């Protein structure tokens, strides 16, 4: 079997940016996964029945976090290259997609994204008009770099990439990012309320303290199942009524 070169891996990387373009509820990322692997599979299996069989096994159900999918892709390329049995490749994909999804969701979606968004929102409230562009640059770089790093590590390590993923400590880092996001949300609230009321000195602290207290009470309601959208409709009606009457 032919070896996969840097060019083939680079093509897989570029294609990984469209991993979810054909996302559907029943097959999820399967079409995208086979599409990302295509340059490597063509190099390894050339054409004919072996190539079609490889496409067939990679069109099976697959879904994980789009950034950490690169680790699975890299490892699968390595396994295909080494001629691993189809059943072994299938077992590896099925075993890794769940943990990759859980780690990626907690670190990227529930950790890094809220922390960076909250930082950008806080900067926006403090008057920095460039905050959204800094956010896109930071998160975009994180996403592109993670995809590249895990694709290469997956290819180098093969199935051992699972241990490399476990060693990173995504969950601990996600928790620290969640704490940062909570602190930045508090900062956003104080900056916004302070700006809205324009109060100074003790009055400012009292208003902000009141807003923080109300938001903590409402947070308890949200935790117990209060629907924010319905709360917004109720508050909107009350505010409009109050504004007209006052």
């Amino acid at each position, binding site marked *: 079997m032919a070896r996969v070169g840097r060019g083939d891996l680079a093509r897989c990387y570029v294609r990984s940016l469209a991993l979810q373009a054909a996302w559907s509820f029943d097959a999820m990322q399967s079409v995208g996964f*086979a599409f990302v692997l295509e340059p490597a599979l063509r190099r390894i299996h050339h054409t004919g029945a072996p190539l079609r069989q490889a496409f067939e096994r990679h069109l099976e159900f697959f879904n994980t976090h789009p950034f950490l999918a690169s680790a699975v892709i890299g490892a699968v390329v390595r396994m295909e290259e080494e001629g691993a049995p189809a059943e072994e490749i299938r077992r590896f994909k099925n075993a890794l997609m769940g943990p990759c999804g859980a780690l990626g969701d907690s670190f990227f979606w529930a950790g890094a994204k809220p922390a960076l968004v909250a930082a950008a929102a806080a900067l926006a409230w403090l008057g920095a008009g460039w*905050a959204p562009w800094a*956010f896109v640059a930071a998160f975009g770089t994180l*996403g592109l770099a993670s995809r590249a790093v895990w694709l290469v590590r997956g290819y180098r390590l093969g199935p051992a990439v699972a241990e490399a993923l476990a060693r990173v400590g995504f969950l601990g880092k996600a928790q620290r990012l*969640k704490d940062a996001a909570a602190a930045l949300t508090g900062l956003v609230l104080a900056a916004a309320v302070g700006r809205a009321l324009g109060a*100074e000195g003790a009055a400012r602290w009292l208003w902000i303290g009141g807003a923080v207290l109300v938001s*903590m009470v409402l947070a308890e309601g949200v935790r117990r199942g209060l629907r924010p959208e319905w709360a917004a409709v109720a508050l909107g009606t009350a505010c409009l009524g109050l*504004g007209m009457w006052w």
Partner: protein
Amino acid sequence: MIQDWLLLTLVGGVAFLDRTAAVQSMASRPLVTGAVAGWILGRPDAGLLVGALLELFWLYELPVGAAVPPDEAGAGLAAAVVAASLPDAADLWARLGAGGMAGLAAGHVGGRVDVAVRRWNRDLVGRARAALAAGEEPGLGRLVLVGGVRFWAAGTTLGLALAGVGLWLGPRVPAPAFRGLGLLGVTLVVLGASVCLGRLASRRAKGCFLAGAMVGAGVGKGAWPWRG
């Protein structure tokens, strides 16, 4: 006016594509789409801040498994269009109140559209498997392109509709409603912060939130009277 509408539609299509189908650079977040739409309509401050407001509501709505969160991209766009096109007499907070409510509604409409596109894409894997069963190559590049075009077309259509409704509705908001909308703008910020805190639901998060609020109160203008 038509030029602005077309630009906003373009932003809607690209942002919807970025949200799921391609790259996921998070240029689809309301903070970004709101800022771009506000800039197009000549009120960058209102667009940026209404986007920052909406972020608080959907920061922890995650696209996990088959869950499809509300469409933040369209929400930011609609919110900024309404906020920016309110009559000149409206202050920033009235813009945030009106835009925030428009964005919350638009997010849920966009979420339904997203679900419809994902259902529509169900045929793609079947087409690939049918080609393989017939002894042909599956044409994966074409299938991925079809899926991406469907996401883009849905986002563009949604952007066209949301921007159109926002541009029509914004200037028609009556002046007597501005005071109530201003009050709503502040209230939505408090509610949004509580949504974030409620989703985190831990004692440690509450401590961090309080610490952040104290820093925010302390760094603002006029926080310390002796500093002038």
